[in-house]
């Protein structure tokens, strides 16, 4: 706290400083737009100085200028900047023209803003209005397809779930998520923010742009600015509402009871035939209930998926925003509420509920002649959310997967279950360990609730003692608290799936981080030279992070309403209690930025940031991250003036380094761990003796992971800015990965986390847009394309492999994702196949170079595994890359058209060049799991299939060996949003409103793909954090929703 105190003194000192200013004369006037509407908030600046003011609510201004002042410059976002000679005028009225080039837009660059046309880095700026118009429930989804170079894929379709976001390819197998900064405060995710609260999102892609965030910026930075207060503005009130209806976009077709029995019979038959035995038929009448009705066709069995789909799934959102202010005080506040029911999980708590409240304000405490000497302000946003509780995870923890694989021959409800006290059907003889998946979901998840709260807030003071020198101090907090409670009743569903005692669990967590940032910026103008600089420091500390959870059995009341820990009869030996406080993580940084431009023609920026982190040991704590960038606006050169094709051309380049410190704490300490080392001596099996053991091989030298990036690009406008093109080429090398690379097991403990690995991402990004107004018909079309190639350069251990998780597609399968030099991160590792053995001739020919059969027991219908290393046998050594989950190309399109009040928006996005590994059933250990109708593509006689092998009851090498039969191309193009609306303001100009839009919208309407699964957008890779780098694995987890919605947006 010393830190804060010392700064407060300085702030107070500054407040009592008075600056003196030269005298001059007063000029006043009104600024209007082409339609003669007054424009409030326009910047009016004396050229070559920072003396300025802004227009008031009526568009009026007055400014004191001294005698040397020559010109006044009027600027306002969305309008062309205009300079007017002062001469001897005392009144200057100005009409600003709308600027289609939009080059005066400012973009956030970290601890400040910069005119877009002067920016030498590579970043994407997305306007909050455009985010809101897409009506996504979280802001990340709205960035899909509009931000070249950003790969966003949903992890699953459940409302409220996080998406995977990678900027310019996957840079590490550790934590590759970008750094999120909301109003200057870092946070781990922005899913919980309301789109209506966002003013803009800036994505800093190249190293030079991100370098000011030094550390933690290795994976790019996403800067979110919430709607800020507006000076001199009448209160603007907007209300946005939409109501949407969800349905499952694509439902997998599962077999019904008849088809299922047919396929199981076929498996059975094939098995006996393979052994050369007479087929022993399955006696279905003794195995499944109501077999006669299945035979007669009266009963087609249970359609488990339909039982789970919530036909009443909807989404509803209300958002109110109020912005306004006087010259001295301004505010922006918002309230929004989202209710979204997931498309699956009927009968459970499958609803995502979120309430956001935001209050931002700015106050000028001391103004002197147009100079805001002391200004303070705050941002505060509060979120309360309730997440749905349907289980989504790997094949062992997923209600959807359970439903997809359940036999259709198991009825949903029991005819008589009086002895089991459950309305659900007990497991059948056919599969006596198969528990009713719907009942399982309801018993395990229905009776549960949770509440998550987060507060993101900051307070700042800005002191400008003299013109152009700004000292800014900001203290921000990111705090969270939450709790959950659940209850599992007594139930019996199968022999091994039952509870004998009801169970209650409660948990809570809370914590906060604070960020204290101090910067001084100064701008100096000398003729055509403009120099601006910024120095600052920042301290970040995770000040508290604690969680407590407990569960108990046998409640007194035996129901959910009374399910609290206190209401349990005894403390059972299954009671689990855990609590810890992981506070103390800290970072300290110093940074500076120097920008120079000459006549807005030549630009140069250098950034240096030094970060110290508590994650590393003495001597390895500090990382220094430099960057430089430069730009040249060719169109400002004389030789470019005499042509009309290119209206603007900026060529830019940058180089820089960024860091990443995301690694578990204390990797440099040699410590003891108590995890999973308990032993039970003595006669009482419940008395634990805690075990302590060396936790890891310590690595004293562990330090920052670094990404180094070079970016070359240009921004160009053609044909009077009708056509804009931006181009970037980049090469990003991420070195010294923070990884726990496998080490010899004979060391006897977990391997050290090392700086050991590097990857290169190279790519290009092109964004082209066309704007045109033909009388009242306006349209603009933007297309973006990004291409990225990812390959690992090195893994710093002897084996040179990072192994993936086993048991992913099915229990009993080996690892299928790997990280290895010269191949993309997380590539699919498995056997190549060359079709199916069609007949005995094929079988006879399936031999190695010596004529020895690869397998003694091959038969028609078996998969032909390729002996890639030609060693004469099929073994692990033949496994190669059979797919790459990283897309090569990401494409986005947006079309905006309007005619008078009517408007139409279409957005589309797509990914190409990647593969998906798919299986909707655990084929090795559970042969009785249901199939989708894709099973009909199986081999069942010569010429019937050359990809899917013959079916059999038992898993064979055909299926156990992970091979390319599970791999498919994932290319897709999706029309993600079509909105058609009308602004009634165009019809009723006299209405006292700014805008009254009524619209209908369809989301996720069409997907063009050859991929056979539910959804080609597969973000899932693993639910284990250690395997975060895995991706593109489709286990049929949570279907994505198609949504039709109707909305209303009114601005007063």
């Amino acid at each position, binding site marked *: 706290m010393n830190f804060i105190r010392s700064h407060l003194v300085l702030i107070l000192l500054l407040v009592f*400083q008075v600056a*003196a200013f030269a005298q001059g004369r007063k000029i006043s006037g009104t600024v209007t737009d082409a339609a003669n509407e007054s424009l409030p908030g326009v910047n009016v600046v004396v050229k070559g100085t920072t003396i300025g003011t802004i227009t008031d609510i009526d568009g009026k201004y007055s400014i004191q200028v001294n005698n040397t002042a020559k010109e006044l410059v009027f600027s306002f976002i969305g309008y062309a900047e205009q300079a007017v000679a002062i001469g001897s005028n005392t009144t200057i009225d100005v009409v600003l023209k709308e600027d289609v080039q939009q080059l005066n837009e400012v973009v956030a660059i970290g601890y400040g803003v910069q005119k877009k046309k002067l920016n030498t880095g590579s970043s994407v700026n997305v306007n909050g209005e455009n985010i809101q118009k897409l009506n996504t429930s979280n802001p990340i989804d709205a960035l899909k397809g509009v931000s070249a170079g950003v790969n966003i894929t949903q992890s699953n379709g459940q409302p409220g779930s996080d998406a995977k976001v990678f900027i310019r390819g996957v840079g590490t197998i550790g934590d590759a998520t970008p750094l999120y900064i909301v109003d200057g405060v870092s946070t781990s995710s922005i899913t919980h923010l309301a789109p209506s609260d966002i003013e803009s999102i800036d994505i800093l892609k190249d190293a030079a742009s991100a370098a000011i965030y030094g550390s933690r910026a290795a994976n790019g930075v996403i800067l979110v600015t919430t709607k800020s207060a507006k000076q001199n503005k009448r209160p603007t009130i907007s209300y946005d509402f939409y109501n949407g209806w969800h349905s499952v976009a694509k439902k997998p077709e599962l077999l019904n009871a008849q088809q299922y029995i047919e396929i199981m019979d076929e498996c059975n038959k094939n098995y006996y035939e393979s052994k050369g035995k007479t087929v022993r038929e399955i006696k279905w009448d003794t195995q499944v209930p109501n077999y006669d009705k299945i035979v007669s066709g009266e009963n087609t069995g249970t359609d488990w998926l339909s039982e789970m789909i919530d036909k009443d799934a909807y989404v509803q959102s209300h958002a109110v925003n109020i912005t306004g202010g006087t010259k001295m005080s301004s505010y922006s506040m918002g309230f929004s509420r989202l209710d979204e029911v997931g498309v699956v999980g009927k009968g459970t708590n499958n609803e995502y509920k979120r309430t956001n409240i935001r209050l931002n304000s700015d106050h000028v405490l001391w103004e002197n002649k147009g100079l805001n000497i002391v200004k303070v302000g705050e941002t505060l946003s509060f979120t309360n959310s309730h997440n749905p509780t349907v289980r989504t995870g790997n094949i062992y923890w997923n209600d959807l997967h359970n439903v997809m694989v359940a036999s259709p021959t198991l009825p949903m409800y029991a005819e008589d279950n009086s002895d089991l006290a459950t309305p659900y059907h007990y497991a059948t003889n056919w599969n006596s360990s198969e528990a009713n998946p719907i009942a399982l979901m309801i018993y395990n998840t229905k009776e549960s609730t949770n509440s998550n709260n987060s507060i993101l807030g900051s307070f700042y003071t800005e002191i400008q003692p003299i013109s152009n020198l700004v000292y800014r101090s900001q203290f921000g907090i990111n705090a969270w608290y939450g709790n959950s409670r659940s209850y599992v009743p007594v139930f019996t569903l199968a022999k091994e799936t039952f509870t004998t005692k009801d169970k209650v669990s409660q948990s809570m967590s809370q914590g906060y981080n604070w960020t204290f940032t101090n910067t001084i910026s100064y701008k100096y103008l000398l003729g055509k030279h403009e120099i601006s600089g910024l120095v600052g420091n920042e301290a970040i500390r995770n000040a508290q992070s604690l969680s407590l959870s407990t569960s108990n059995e046998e409640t007194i009341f035996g129901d959910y309403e009374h399910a609290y820990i206190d209401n349990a009869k005894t403390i059972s030996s299954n009671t689990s209690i855990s609590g810890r406080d992981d506070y103390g993580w800290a970072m300290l940084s110093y940074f500076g930025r120097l920008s120079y431009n000459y006549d807005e023609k030549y630009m140069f920026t250098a950034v240096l940031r030094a970060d110290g982190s508590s994650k590393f040991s003495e001597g390895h704590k500090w990382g220094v991250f430099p960057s430089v960038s430069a730009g040249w606006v060719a169109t400002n050169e004389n030789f470019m003036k005499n042509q009309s094709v290119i209206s603007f051309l900026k060529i830019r380049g940058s180089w820089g380094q960024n860091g990443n410190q995301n690694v578990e704490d204390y990797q440099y300490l040699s410590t003891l761990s108590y995890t999973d080392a308990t032993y039970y*001596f003595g*006669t009482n*099996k*419940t008395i634990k003796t805690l*075990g302590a053991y060396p936790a890891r091989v310590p690595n004293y030298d562990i330090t920052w992971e670094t990404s180094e990036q070079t970016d070359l690009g240009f921004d160009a406008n053609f044909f009077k800015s009708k056509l804009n093109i931006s181009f970037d080429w980049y090469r990003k090398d991420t070195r010294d990965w923070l990884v726990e690379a*496998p080490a010899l097991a004979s060391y*006897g403990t977990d391997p050290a986390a090392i700086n050991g690995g590097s990857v290169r991402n190279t790519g290009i990004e092109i964004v082209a847009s066309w704007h045109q107004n033909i009388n009242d018909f306006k349209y603009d079309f933007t297309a973006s394309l990004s291409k990225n190639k990812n390959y690992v350069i090195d893994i710093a251990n002897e084996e040179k492999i990072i192994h993936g998780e086993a048991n992913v597609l099915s229990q*009993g399968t080996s690892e299928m994702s790997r990280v290895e030099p010269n191949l993309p991160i997380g590539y699919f590792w498995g056997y190549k196949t060359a079709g199916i053995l069609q007949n005995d001739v094929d079988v006879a020919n399936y031999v190695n170079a010596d004529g020895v059969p690869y397998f003694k027991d091959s038969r028609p219908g078996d998969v032909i595994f390729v002996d890639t290393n030609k060693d004469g046998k099929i073994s692990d050594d033949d496994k190669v890359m059979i797919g790459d989950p990283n897309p090569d190309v990401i494409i986005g399109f947006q079309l905006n058209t309007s005619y008078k009040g009517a408007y139409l928006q279409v957005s589309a996005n797509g990914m190409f060049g990647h593969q998906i590994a798919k299986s909707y059933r655990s084929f090795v250990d559970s042969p009785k799991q249901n199939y989708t109708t894709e099973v009909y593509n199986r081999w069942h006689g010569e010429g019937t299939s050359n990809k899917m092998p013959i079916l059999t009851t038992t898993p064979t090498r055909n299926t156990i060996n992970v091979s390319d039969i599970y791999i498919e191309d994932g290319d897709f193009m999706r029309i993600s949003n079509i909105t058609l609306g009308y602004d009634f303001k165009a019809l009723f100009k006299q209405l006292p409103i700014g805008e009254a839009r009524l619209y209908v919208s369809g989301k996720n309407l069409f997907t063009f793909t050859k991929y056979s699964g539910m959804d080609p957008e597969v973000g899932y890779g693993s639910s284990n954090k250690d395997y975060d780098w895995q991706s593109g694995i489709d286990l049929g987890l949570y279907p994505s929703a198609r949504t039709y919605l109707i909305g209303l947006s009114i601005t007063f």
Partner: protein
Amino acid sequence: MKNIRYISLLILVALVTSCGENFLEKKDLYEVSDETYYSNPEEVQTALAAAYSTLPTTGVNDALLIANLMSDDCLGGGGSGDTGFHDIDGFTNSSEDLYLPIWQNCYKGILRVNMIIYRIDNAKYSNETEKNRDLGEAYFLRGVFYLRLAQIFGNVPLITLPDAVNYPKAETSALFGQILFDFKKAIELMPSTKYADVSTDRLGHATKWAAEGFIARAFLFYTGKYNVSDATLADGTTLTKSDVIAYVDDCVANSGHGLIPDFRNQWPYAYANTTYKYAVDNKLNWVGETGDNVETMFALKFSPYGGWNSPTVITYSNQLTLYMGIRTGGKSYQDFGQGWGGGPVNPQLFESFEAGDPRKAGSITDVTDPNEGDISTKYVWNADNSVHETGLWQKKYTPILVNGSGMYNAILGAGTQTNYQLWNMQDEVLLRFADVLLMGAELGSAKAQDYFDRVRTRVGLATKTVSLDAIKDERRHELAFEGLRYYDLLRWHDEVAAFAKATNIKVQNLAIEDTYSITYRPETNGFAPIPESQVKLSDGILVQNPGW
């Protein structure tokens, strides 16, 4: 204006200096530094517990399960997708790290005891006997870990200091020199307290007597398998056969261990003596695990806190019982709970028991035998895609149901697991007094005949003249499924002959009558492959075993 410049400068200075360096220090509140640990007896106790906790290995890598599957007494079994069972049984290796868990666990345990041996002098003990006892346990455990590695993998890297060093495989003589040295140290350090005088809350800890049993086991294996007569220990001294005989004689005479009157009362099925027909008819009465079992000399302990520490790894419950239990496929038998059906019993073993040997039905459930009660009328073949099914199931380690739920559930009551995968917690016996007697007889103790007779008369069989052949038979029948048979075959060099017999065994594969031959590959010398990932990670220093 001047003022402002000064103040700006001040701000700059403040920015650069205001944070103390200790701002970046973070204290670890959940882990203790190993520099200061091992400083008192309590901490050594926790370190020992952590070492003991690595003895049970989950999945198909339980040490007894591996040995049973590799032997000629058990087939592969389980379901058709259980490649782990089939690979171990069939000397194949379809996944390159099949044996990684046991390799890993042994070396984890070795590091943990190496730390104790290295650091124990820093610990302040008020009682030297206690310190020696704790140190003795550490030596004992290191011996057990290396003996496991040596029996499963042959030659392995020998690490005796807490260092992370990439060593090549040690010479056999060096490896066994260390194992025998460790057991000898354990014998010398640990107190000679008789079993009855050991406090029951120390059950599960190694004792001097266990070390005397293990030194015999290691010596017999080393001298037998490698055809040597003496061993040169790590400290340069020599361990002769007569030294080992002296240890065994000491153990038999002074340990306070003995045989319990009824062989069958050692195993949990004896507890089900109100429902399980065989237990009822024979008036069995389980001896329990709370100290009355004088025969158990060293056993692994389990608890009701079984859980999944990953989707496929279970901790703290007895997985041997789960993996080798009858594959019921969820079907309900009155007395036997669900297991995964690993290692169905070779009918040749079943047939080889002498007439009247109660250990036959006491060790093996024949599902067609009416004396077995409920299961004999309800047994379902091919439950859940069974393979290598012989209708014979070992019953020393099998889940026992009492009142419809797991046996320990019935004994311990509230709070125990209701999940069949987690509810088994019977002691896994690594050393039994009967084994010590038979080893004593085999080593040629002066009391060989007496030792041998004690084992036979306990089960009501007539005495026989002690001979190696007689001992071989006796060991097979007395110690079946206890993880000893396979290593016995190796050290007697009987493995080729034994496996040659274990062919064309009648089995059912998914309800189809079929035959099965237990595979043995002599080119492997009987050893399992070193986990392939370890070979790769060693950068060529660790060489794969022959035959793999």
